[in-house]
């Protein structure tokens, strides 16, 4: 009933599923940790309570997000062994140390300081607490560095030697392994993506509360901060993405051919296919809407530059075209939509209508999840686009999987799907509920007691202070601490 091909496909689906689900959380928590560090820093610098309130508001959301990122991340660190044992044996000597560095320099840092960040403000004082926040934020960024280094090595392998037992062994320089050709581009593009993802979530939440009460100072502050990010960083991201694409053209041309839908070579200028239905059977794009020579202009900065197509690549090395083609268009489309919202916010600022333009706020709410979609689409482009290889050009996906029976992989896949949708679906719902409540003056901290009725934010009497004004006394005791 099952054969190895089924087991391989199921293992691929399982990896795609678990990694896609997982990446949603770090894409948010990398940016959110930095945002929290900025908020706490601004609070320490200016003494304005609004920053502390926002810090505590987003800290509760961060706690839930981070927990989901941790548990789904541990799954990933074992996926390599459970489902991709051949790959682990062969590539372990090269990528294993990078993953070990990720644990040593990032995971411990985040986890070690998280407890203090969540619960320790009153125990360690402001400065040490800020240090803890910085360490957590730094840990998330360092983690991105190492895991993207691993991924980049798999995309553009370098610095290795082949061992007699079929293993990839490190050559004389680890520098060459850590900093492969695609790594700088991937790192910049991914980390900016995480910041943008967070900015649009924060912006969406701010917009939601502005629609309900446009005088809400907390909502104004977060909406303004988020829209600055959108306006300033979205163009940078489009530029970084373009450079990343050119780098891919150089090192993984087949991926770009799939992104462009170029089955055929174009010796005198290739068109950009705006939309169409890739038909890999016939090796053409059906119903294509094309802009003549635009692809050559984008990729080669020359209208008539020749561009090779998939017809120059042996068929057994073709990536699946459809998913790559579509995911690329989703990602780019969202990128420009983000840019559009950022520019709109600049116009609103100039016209002094940033907090007073319901249509802008509604657009920001619609765009709130755009970062997640763009990030997942981007990973689909790069991961499906490098098929059929795990180590590009060297180790085929089919030769990477564990010697497992299809029912074992299928059963575990089913378990992951059920558990992930139930658990992370519930977690997402909790986060949305936290976001639904507006940040308050004297926003309570992470609550840790179940005695009595649930305390809603703002009930705890605290010292009086004006919104956004300096704190007159110590802030209200962290609820339940």
């Amino acid at each position, binding site marked *: 009933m099952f054969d190895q091909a089924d087991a391989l496909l199921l293992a691929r689906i399982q990896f795609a599923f678990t990694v896609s689900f997982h990446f949603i959380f770090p894409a948010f928590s990398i940016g959110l940790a930095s945002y929290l560090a900025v908020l706490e820093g601004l609070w320490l610098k200016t003494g304005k309570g609004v920053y502390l309130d926002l810090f505590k508001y987003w800290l509760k959301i961060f706690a839930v997000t981070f927990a989901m990122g941790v548990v789904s991340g541990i799954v990933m660190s074992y996926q390599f062994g459970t489902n991709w044992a051949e790959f682990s044996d062969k590539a*372990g000597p090269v990528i294993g140390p990078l993953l070990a560095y990720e644990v040593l320099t990032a995971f411990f840092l985040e986890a070690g300081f998280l407890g203090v960040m969540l619960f320790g403000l009153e125990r360690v004082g402001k400065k040490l607490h800020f240090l803890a926040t910085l360490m957590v934020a730094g840990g998330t960024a360092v983690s991105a560095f190492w895991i993207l280094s691993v991924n980049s090595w798999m995309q553009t392998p370098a610095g290795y030697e082949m061992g007699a037992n079929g293993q990839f062994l490190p050559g004389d320089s680890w520098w060459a392994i850590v900093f492969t050709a695609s790594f700088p581009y991937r790192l910049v593009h991914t980390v900016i993506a995480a910041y943008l993802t967070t900015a649009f979530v924060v912006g969406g939440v701010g917009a939601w509360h502005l629609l309900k009460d446009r005088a809400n100072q907390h909502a104004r502050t977060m909406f303004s901060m988020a829209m600055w990010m959108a306006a300033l960083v979205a163009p940078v991201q489009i530029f970084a993405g373009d450079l990343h694409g050119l780098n891919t053209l150089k090192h993984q041309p087949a991926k770009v051919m799939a992104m462009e839908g170029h089955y055929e070579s174009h010796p005198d200028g290739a068109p950009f296919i705006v939309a169409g239905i890739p038909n890999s059977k016939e090796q053409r794009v059906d119903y294509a809407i094309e802009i003549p020579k635009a692809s050559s202009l984008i990729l080669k900065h020359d209208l008539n530059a020749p561009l090779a197509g998939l017809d120059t690549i042996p068929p057994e090395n073709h990536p699946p075209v459809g998913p790559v083609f579509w995911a690329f268009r989703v990602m780019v489309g969202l990128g420009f939509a983000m840019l559009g919202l950022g520019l709109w916010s600049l116009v609103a600022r100039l016209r002094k209508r940033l907090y007073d333009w319901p249509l802008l706020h509604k657009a920001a709410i619609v765009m709130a999840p755009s970062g997640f979609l763009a990030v997942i689409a981007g990973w689909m482009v790069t991961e499906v686009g490098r098929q059929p290889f795990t180590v590009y050009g060297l180790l085929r996906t089919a030769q990477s999987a564990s010697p497992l029976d299809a029912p074992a992989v299928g059963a575990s896949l089913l378990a992951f799907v059920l558990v992930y949708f139930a658990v992370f679906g519930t977690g997402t719902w909790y986060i949305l509920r936290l976001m639904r409540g507006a940040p308050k003056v004297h926003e309570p901290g992470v609550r840790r007691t179940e005695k009595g009725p649930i305390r809603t934010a703002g009930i705890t009497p605290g010292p009086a202070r004006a919104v956004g004004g300096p704190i007159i006394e110590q802030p209200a005791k962290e609820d339940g601490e």
Partner: protein
Amino acid sequence: MSVDLTAIWAFIIAFAVFAYVVMDGFDLGIGILFPSFKVGEERDQAMNSIAPVWDGNETWLVLGGGGLLAAFPLAYAIILPATYPLIIAMLLGLVFRGVAFEFRWRDPGHRPFWDMAFSGGSLVAALSQGMILGAILQGIEVDGRAYAGSWWDWLTPYTLLTGLGTVAGYALLGTTWLVWKTEGSTQAHAYRLALRATLATLLLLGAVSLYTPLLDARYWERWFAMPNVLFAAQVPLLTAIIAGFLLWGLKKKWQAAPFLLSLGLFLLGMAGLGVSMWPFVVPDVVTIWDAAAPPRSQVFMLIGVGLTLPLILAYTGWAYWVFRGKVGSEGYH
């Protein structure tokens, strides 16, 4: 004299595994016994005693797994497929356990469910970890560089025994931790549970210790042949002494010592494991030298470990220090 990097790495991985077992062990142990604590203050105290540190504790599991991949990729590639359903069960158990720390505070209506998830997840994770250990000890079928058995080979009476032993041992760590960190009715309950957990742990540890040499003549030789026996015999001897102190301490209501003595029991268990396995990583098939990554990988990582591990231990210690003392019902005081 040349330094044997592979042996150093075996010790580093063993250290990571030990750190994980004892640190997440008490988290999981508290989870396993969670339903026996009264809803309200007792559960709050139990949960709050580990909430600030569980995440750091669990990171040692990632270091154990990631380190195994990095330092002994062949072992990683054989053991994980061989124990596939157990690993998946452990991971899913840890998913439920981990999110429950946050989710139980989000909605009072859902709290009973997340408390069950916390407990059930902890139990499944602990049982799976113990069974993984048993599955490695009882031997793994290998062909060339890959696992060659079926996906149910791990399920035997022996692995069930090691699984239960681990559950009992984690319960011991969890209860003695609570004895240290809590007060009032929570602590009184923890004392009662700790006594039972001690007896269960000793019983199951004894059963596993007697069963293991019967599994394979080689284990018999390792434990009972001269001159090994001179060293090996110290392990059960010390275990008996520590167990005596532990029972005495629980009777005398010592505060911190029961937990530290439980750590001692686990350390001896680790030593016993060393007697049984060294220098194999998959018994009788793959030694640490067969499985080792090349020296360049080992050196590169050793630099990282040398630079970061002291720092990690320092700030982990600091985080524990910040949350020292009795936990109280409303978080730390």
